[in-house]
């Protein structure tokens, strides 16, 4: 039977910490995680279409603001060899049980199909990639950091603060906040540009948890205010 969890009101705590957050565009990167065809395109994913369109539109808006402010955009996406698909027993189990992992429906098969070493990207076209963006196309796990070159890229860029967009809020996005915090970065969720195919309960849990535990959560409007960069402005 479904239960309700009443949230503890920590508004004052959250407002205080939000006021302490500084974003220096020169030391900031925008990381987009898993908004690619296999995860969100309705032909291959159970992610609800309207929901997906809202997240993609917000993500595109966020990226336009970041690019205009001179903040690099990094697209991170999953690509596993078949032999790598069940390395974690817990994640591998979803391939064995006959119940959908997502409450919205079954995952549909889609193999990008390139031979070993030739996969490029399948980012949703609304997001680019545009010239100057970076691509990390070998994410294997829930983590954008583990077994990828993301940290080396971030250090090369001089990044201290990470603005996050993508799916899914409670898994790979929340994992990214843990990974980033553990590595000394400042992780920030952009609320409208994040969504979850695991259910709105776990989506709202992750937003609440990041705000109260691992990082910060800003709206698009709050990000625009902090960057001082109107949508569509050109980088200096």
């Amino acid at each position, binding site marked *: 039977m479904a239960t309700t969890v009443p949230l503890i009101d920590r508004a004052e705590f959250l407002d205080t910490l939000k006021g302490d957050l500084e974003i220096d565009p020169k030391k900031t990167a925008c990381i987009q995680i898993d908004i690619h065809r296999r995860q969100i395109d309705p032909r291959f994913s159970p992610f609800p279409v309207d929901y997906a369109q809202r997240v993609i539109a917000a993500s595109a808006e966020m990226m336009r603001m970041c690019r205009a402010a001179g903040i690099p955009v990094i697209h991170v996406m999953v690509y596993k060899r078949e032999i790598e698909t069940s390395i974690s027993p817990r994640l591998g189990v979803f391939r064995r049980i006959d119940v959908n992992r997502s409450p919205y429906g079954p995952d549909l098969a889609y193999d990008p199909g390139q031979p070993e070493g030739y996969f490029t990207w399948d980012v949703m076209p609304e997001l680019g990639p545009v010239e100057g963006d970076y691509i990390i196309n070998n994410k294997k796990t829930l983590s954008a950091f583990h077994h990828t070159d993301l940290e080396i890229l971030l250090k090369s860029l001089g990044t201290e603060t990470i603005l996050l967009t993508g799916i899914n809020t409670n898994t790979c996005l929340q994992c990214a906040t843990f990974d980033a915090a553990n590595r000394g970065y400042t992780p920030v969720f952009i609320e409208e540009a994040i969504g979850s195919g695991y259910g709105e309960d776990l989506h709202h849990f992750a937003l609440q948890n990041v*705000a109260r535990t691992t990082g910060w959560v800003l709206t698009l409007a709050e990000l625009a205010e902090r960057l001082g960069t109107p949508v569509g402005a050109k980088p200096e």
Partner: protein
Amino acid sequence: VQTLDIDIWDRPDLLEALQNAFELTDSARMAVITVDMSERHARRGLPPGKLETLLSDTSSFLDFARKSGIPVIHVISALRPIEAGYMKRWASEERTGQSPSPYGGPSSEVSGPEGAFEPDILPGIFEDGDYIIKTKKTFSAFHGTDLSHLLLSLKRDVTVFCGMDTNGSIQGTVFDANNLGYGTVAIADCCASTYGDDLHELALEQLRRCLAWTFTIDEFQTKLAVKV
């Protein structure tokens, strides 16, 4: 960020299928890992009565694990003063005088003296023969510690978690355990959160649906292949 109540989505078919698919029942592959079961961490506060039940349940579970031949590893945080600002979020809480705990306790885990910090594991949790790692600095018991090396030495690849905080370092460590290829189990009765009982309950739902086989002590005991 939502400030209202959160209705848990009813997914009994998924949860039942996941629990039934648990095959990591060989105790010879398991290690129990307690996270931040320290005096310093507990001072941040828990809901009334929670610390007492956490200690009682965890003590009982650890006894069972030891009798089953499962090694017990205690991982606790200890920061040098110079490391206090490493985690940006914690530094912000310190700078603004805010505690992440709604129960009002202090948040600092700074400890000393250098090289000679004595573990302050909560009463009834440690026994001779257990292992202690006292270099945790982040939300992960793996990151920057020798936990992976110890598990490799013990030849254990199924990690069973207890401790604090369900939504913080338990969840953070379970993420890493999955990403490193370990089997993941959480014992619900033996977890708690100084961040709030709401985040504890929601994190348990997150663990059981997405990240770890999450059992009560009784459920876990019936799953083990070898009975004590």
